[in-house]
């Protein structure tokens, strides 16, 4: 059963879509606009599509206009041309002002940049395609200012819709503002009616090759014309069908256009179909055996995926294409039709003339294309809609919430969630430092709030508990979230627990410790674990990640990088492929650590040890700290937790969500957060276990188990729901009774 996502007011979600594309020209971007509208509609969203250009042919527009819940705003008949960026931004803003939309989908960098400075900011779901494709391009003088523009777009967007995982990771790595906002929206393959692939198809004789699209040097279209001749020399009778009429005039190769045309017109075994609409081009493709998407290696670094490859795959026509990491991820590293040179193309096509190879290639392409259906796109959008417009717990009334604290980094997504809930108004009392705040603001907010959530049990909790005790209303509630360091400070001792309704700890061990050290009533201390955005972290691993260990955060010393290095040293004695990647600030970048002589001495000795060891020096990589952890974890096969002490340690959970296998040393309480199968007695045991998992080929199985475990226990939506329930529940007694351990810790294994 499909559940409709509704807005805070309980209405159906309304979307305004502008593609900055001309729907008279049926190309990839027009198909994208059509698919976006259809997918939103499938996800039960009310859609208004704004057209850029006056309608000259309604082949794409008319079917959309017939969809219930879809409104198409055409350009006036007498409009002289397409909307400019400026005019489009103005029109979108006006439409929104007249009747506000819940989300605004825009495509195209220039438009996205323009609307960042409008009231639409914050509700933008931006689809970026025309962005630099690598770091060198991003910082090139020709693209001066682009990075700043994109950062502004990221800031103003609710989501950045990325066509591929590669684009998402690139944006997150280059623009830290984009981290956490990038979600996938891959191309959508919609096959014209009647072109469904026939099962069990085998290659015909002659073997029909097909290319559709523009003719350009880097698309290797001229080289393709030699294939019938070269295949004939190999004893394979073949025809080449080419569809398209745009022959590129290349400045660096002035003779290309003439050469290409002559080849199209006179090559034996080549059938030139000329230009055709997309549906007809797909019909021609469906009558052929093998598609060609073999390109110049310059294009191998593209962050975009060819929609044509997917369309051919959807038609059951296997495709010859370059071996790139993206294509390997799509079709598998052993896909039989990867080719880089003309000779290789001839080889793989000749091999595919055999039914066995052909069937493998065809099945892979069909399977890959199934991930790009309209239904898959709608499912993705449903997930994003649930995140953007969550539903409130049953029976929750209108609630005013204040969140107070000096450092909200462990509360960000919970805050987002509370803010998105219907009938919940959230205000933040941001303390500039642990013990520093504006009492005037605090008093005003405390008087306004129904519920106060103090992130950290520090001076903020003391201040609010005292204020509420003296001036608070009986219906006001105070919730305090206690992590680790506060427990060893003086603040819990000064907190008037009678004024507090609930103390939330992130792990059962720390909840017990809190009860023991403070003597607070057991029912007042509850557990809601830390959250992991499992959807954000769940990404395809990069090949070879099983030899890569990851550590997130190396300071202070109690994180025990030295023990992680012990693990690595033992592993590298047998297999130098094991490498430790550390994503962290360096200790000397944290003055509060580097100024402590005992910390400094220990780190200095450790860094000397690493530097002077031929085994370790090439095996430890210090990667910069940053919010791009999810993309960084794609390279990590095992995530380590070697600390002396942690309250929760999010890193293993994030690693598990990313599909890495966690490996922990037994810090106190670890077995009440993570399953015992991941906890090892000492570094040697940890190293041996890691080596065994890899050597015995169990890595895939173990990581799947780990991912399932973290999703079951610490998934973001699960933890958000628990917080919403706690914050919006009127009776604290109910809450305490209901949530002794709100999220169950994994059952310890034998």
């Amino acid at each position, binding site marked *: 059963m499909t559940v409709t996502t509704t807005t805070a007011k309980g209405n159906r979600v309304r979307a305004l879509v502008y593609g900055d594309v001309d729907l008279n020209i049926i190309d990839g971007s027009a198909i994208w606009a059509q698919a976006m509208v259809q997918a939103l509609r499938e996800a039960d969203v009310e859609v208004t599509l704004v057209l850029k250009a006056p309608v000259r042919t309604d082949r794409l527009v008319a079917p959309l206009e017939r969809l219930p819940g879809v409104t198409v705003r055409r350009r006036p008949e007498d409009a002289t041309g397409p909307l400019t960026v400026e005019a489009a931004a103005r029109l979108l803003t006006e439409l929104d002002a007249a009747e506000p939309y819940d989300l605004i989908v825009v495509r195209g960098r220039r438009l996205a940049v323009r609307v960042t400075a409008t009231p639409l900011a914050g509700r933008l779901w931006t689809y970026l395609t025309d962005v630099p494709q690598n770091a060198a391009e991003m910082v090139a003088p020709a693209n001066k200012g682009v990075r700043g523009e994109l950062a502004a777009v990221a800031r103003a967007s609710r989501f950045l819709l990325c066509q591929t995982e590669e684009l998402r990771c*690139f944006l997150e790595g280059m623009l830290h503002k984009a981290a956490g906002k990038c979600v996938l929206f891959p191309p959508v393959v919609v096959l014209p009616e009647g072109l469904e692939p026939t099962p069990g198809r085998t290659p015909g004789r002659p073997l029909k090759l097909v290319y559709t699209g523009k003719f350009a040097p880097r698309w290797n279209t001229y080289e393709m014309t030699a294939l019938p001749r070269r295949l004939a020399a190999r004893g394979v009778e073949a025809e080449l069908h080419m569809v398209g009429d745009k022959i590129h005039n290349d400045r660096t190769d002035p003779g290309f256009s003439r050469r290409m045309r002559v080849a199209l017109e006179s090559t034996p075994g080549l059938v030139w179909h000329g230009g055709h609409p997309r549906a007809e081009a797909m019909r021609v493709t469906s009558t052929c055996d093998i598609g060609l998407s073999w390109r110049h290696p310059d294009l191998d670094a593209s962050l975009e995926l060819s929609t044509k490859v997917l369309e051919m795959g959807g038609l059951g026509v296997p495709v010859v294409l370059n071996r790139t990491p993206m294509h390997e991820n799509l079709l598998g590293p052993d896909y039989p039709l990867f080719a880089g040179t003309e000779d290789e193309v001839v080889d793989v096509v000749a091999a595919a003339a055999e039914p066995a190879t052909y069937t493998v290639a065809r099945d892979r392409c069909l399977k890959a294309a199934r991930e790009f259906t309209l239904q898959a796109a709608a499912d993705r959008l449903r997930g994003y809609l649930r995140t953007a417009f969550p539903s409130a717990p049953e029976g929750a009334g209108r609630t005013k919430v204040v969140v107070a604290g000096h450092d909200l980094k462990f509360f960000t997504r919970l805050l987002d969630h509370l803010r998105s809930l219907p009938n919940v108004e959230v205000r933040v009392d941001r303390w500039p430092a642990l013990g520093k705040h504006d009492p005037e603001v605090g008093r005003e907010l405390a008087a306004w709030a129904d519920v106060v959530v103090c992130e950290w049990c520090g001076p903020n909790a003391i201040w609010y508990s005292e204020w509420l005790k003296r001036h608070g209303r009986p219906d006001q509630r105070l919730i305090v979230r206690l992590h680790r360091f506060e427990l060893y400070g003086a603040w819990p001792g000064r907190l008037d627990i009678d004024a507090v309704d609930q103390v939330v700890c992130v792990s059962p061990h720390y909840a017990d410790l809190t009860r023991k050290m403070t003597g607070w009533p057991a029912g007042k201390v509850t557990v809601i674990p830390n959250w992991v955005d499992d959807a954000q972290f769940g990404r395809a691993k990069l090949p070879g990640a099983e030899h890569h260990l990851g550590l997130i955060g190396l300071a202070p010393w109690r994180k025990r990088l030295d023990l992680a290095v012990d693990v690595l040293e033992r592993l590298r004695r047998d297999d130098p492929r094991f*490498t430790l990647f550390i994503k962290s600030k360096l200790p000397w970048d944290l003055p509060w650590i580097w100024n402590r002589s005992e910390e400094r001495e220990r780190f200095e000795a450790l860094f000397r040890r690493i530097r002077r060891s031929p085994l370790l020096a090439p095996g430890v990589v210090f990667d910069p700290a940053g919010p791009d952890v999810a993309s960084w974890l794609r390279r990590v096969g095992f995530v380590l937790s070697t600390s002396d002490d942690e309250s929760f340690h999010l890193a293993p959970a994030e690693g598990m969500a990313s599909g890495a296998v966690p490996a922990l040393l037994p810090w106190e309480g670890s077995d009440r957060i993570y399953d015992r199968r991941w906890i090892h007695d000492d570094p040697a045991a940890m190293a041996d276990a890691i080596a065994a998992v890899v050597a015995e080929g169990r890595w895939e199985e173990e990581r799947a188990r780990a991912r399932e475990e973290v999703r079951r226990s610490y998934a973001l939506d699960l933890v958000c729901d628990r917080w919403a329930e706690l914050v919006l529940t009127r009776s604290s007694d109910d809450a305490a009774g209901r949530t002794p351990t709100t999220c169950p810790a994994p059952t310890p294994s034998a």
Partner: protein
Amino acid sequence: MADRQVSRLKAALADREARVRILEARVAALEASTSLRVGRAVTDAARRPGKGVVRLPRELYRMWRHRGTPNVVTSVDARERPMFSARDEDRLIVGSPATGLAVAGVLGRAAAEELGRTAHVVPLMPHDAALILDTADVDLVLVDAAAGAPGGPWAYLGVPGVPDRERALLGLMDVARSRGRPLVLLGSAPGLAGLGWDATLRTDTPLDEALAGLHARFSLDLG
């Protein structure tokens, strides 16, 4: 002659400016330190016995309250920090016992082994490449596309969508270019083409022969 004079003066100016920036940062850090501020408050109070002395306890109390808060001049990640760019001549006095060709390399295992037989190899890691190149006296920089294979420190170099490795590479290329060292690519990978290499070598090129060719092509002076 005049050109050389101008470039020497430019280098000296850049040198001075870099030093001034560092000194400014240090002064700012020092000025933000509690000890200096306490000292200043006390001397100010001594200089103005009336108002100053009255104000002193309050000033000292405020400083005491803010003790331990981070300095306004915060440290940035070392790997993102702009390098202190020494003049090329300064490196002449750096001890370097290597003889023959010195090659700084982003290298896969096979290339490192092969290269080690004919040249002095300075291995580069993603986190230290720019730093090492800034100080070491090498003749050329070789980037082996095979270093991007998994199971090594440069894993995924050249793989689209892994920008941290690419940024580390661009950083070291910047330093190599600023020092006039030839940049040579061995083999190919999707994200490495088009970065402006001075020379490219095919994967199967015997490196001893290739080095001889590069030596001649770039007129490398081995002393």
